[in-house]
């Protein structure tokens, strides 16, 4: 059995002549929680829609559980739980009818888990879906996705509209799922602290490309932000490779570098800086640096 639950090969997508995805390649191995990050409109939702077969790619190929996305057989779909952007449930139905529909059409259903979730979230069964708040729709969507005991969970902004407590509940649910054998989660989120807690691997989408795709801890170790002060004006060119960002102001230079190592340290030292301090970067900082328009794609080895 292939180790990669999700595989994206050279994915290209054009919308009305505009290039949204420009050659995306990544894979999500089994048992991994993959956090896909990107600014609004970066293309995260597009990738997920293509993965789920809701839209065809312009070029390239995506596979879920070894089946091509454009022709997912029902058996495979039954093993995938998904929460799409905006929680697309059938708005006009009553909650109970929607649940009944899902129950009837699903291949497996964990009633005990589902009822527990409904109780925890206190979702009303007799209201129409459109009368629920965004947060409750999110929770309903999550409950439906988890009730089928999915092997693969694909979540597009699953915490949209959730309050702090509900968000924490979601995180705990995700961890609960991943602790079971062989489960995998792919999710997008804007709440980077959440991503930092539970993700194994991170992908950052910017300008149609995946500028980062690596394990989370590697990302933090390899991307360094340094505040370097020179005795005289800071040199314009440090002859360092993989500079993500560089700002110079007089004698001071703030530089963000990928794959920092002793070699680069040595190169920096040839310029004889008077001080060099590391500025700790949170995932949020790294994300902001990597999604600046001028940023170069990081090859974080």
């Amino acid at each position: 059995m292939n180790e990669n639950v999700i595989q994206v090969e050279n994915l290209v997508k054009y919308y009305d002549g505009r290039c949204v995805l420009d050659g995306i390649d990544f894979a999500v191995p089994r048992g991994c929680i993959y956090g896909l990050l990107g600014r609004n409109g970066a293309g995260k939702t597009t990738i997920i829609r293509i993965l789920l077969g809701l839209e065809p790619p312009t070029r390239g190929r995506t596979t879920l559980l070894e089946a091509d996305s454009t022709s997912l057989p029902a058996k495979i779909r039954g093993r995938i739980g998904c929460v799409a952007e905006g929680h697309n449930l059938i708005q006009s139905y009553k909650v109970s009818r929607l649940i009944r529909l899902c129950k009837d059409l699903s291949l497996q259903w964990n009633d005990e888990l589902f009822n527990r979730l409904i109780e925890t979230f206190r979702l009303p069964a007799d209201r129409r879906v459109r009368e629920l708040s965004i947060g409750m729709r999110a929770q309903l969507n999550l409950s439906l996705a988890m009730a089928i005991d999915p092997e693969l969970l694909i979540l597009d902004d699953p915490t949209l509209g959730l309050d702090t407590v509900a968000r924490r509940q979601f995180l705990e649910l995700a961890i609960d799922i991943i602790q079971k054998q062989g489960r995998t989660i792919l999710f997008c989120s804007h709440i980077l602290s959440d991503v930092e807690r539970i993700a194994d691997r991170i992908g950052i989408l910017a300008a149609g490309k995946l500028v980062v795709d690596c394990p989370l801890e590697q990302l933090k170790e390899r991307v360094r932000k340094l505040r370097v002060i020179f005795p005289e004006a800071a040199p314009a060119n440090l002859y360092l490779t993989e500079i993500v960002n560089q700002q110079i102001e007089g004698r001071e230079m703030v530089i963000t570098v990928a794959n920092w190592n002793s070699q680069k340290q040595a190169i920096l030292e040839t310029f004889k800086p008077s001080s060099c301090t590391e500025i700790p970067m949170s995932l949020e900082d790294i994300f902001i640096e990597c999604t600046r328009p001028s940023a170069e794609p990081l090859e974080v080895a």
Partner: protein
Amino acid sequence: MFALIKREIQDHLVYFIAAAVFSALLVLVLVEAVFKYDSRNPPVISISLGVAFAAIVTLGICGMGASQMYLDKSRRISAFLSTLPVSRSRILLARITAGILAILILLVPLAITAIFLLRLFTPPIPLYSGMVWEIFTATFLLALACYCIGLQTGWNSSAITPSLGGLGLTCIFVPLVVVKGLGPEIMVILASFIAASLFRTWHNFSSTSL
């Protein structure tokens, strides 16, 4: 599958009720026409009433097909169903099954009534055995053709355009029927049209973005 069909019926219950109602109305008209039949005084009112009902029904069938597709698109029903382990082909099949069910609800009582009446009375025009079946099948195919037009156009436009299309189709087919009669040739033409239309609908539905 059953769940899908049930869903379609529940969502479009009004059409099923209308089918039953119009079926009853047409049966009444037919019975009245036959009972009151007088070779000197053809029941013009009944016949014109019957034709009027038939026209409404044609529009209605077309409208049902269109409405099923249009509602799907506007309420994003298939978008949601796609997240469940059902293929688009199954969704479409359930949809068409529901449509056929509605048509049958409409036509079968009529057919039964016709057979019953034939047992009671001798018809003014000579009928050969099996003619009822032929007429029934041809009418069924005609209704199905209207339905297919509705299905095909309903995904992209509002409910009005396909109904006009159905009317247009009726205008084409009725003279054809009058000329050729409700015979095997008509059935072949209609069947080919239905097959082509369904294939196109299926192809569009399978590859559209949801």
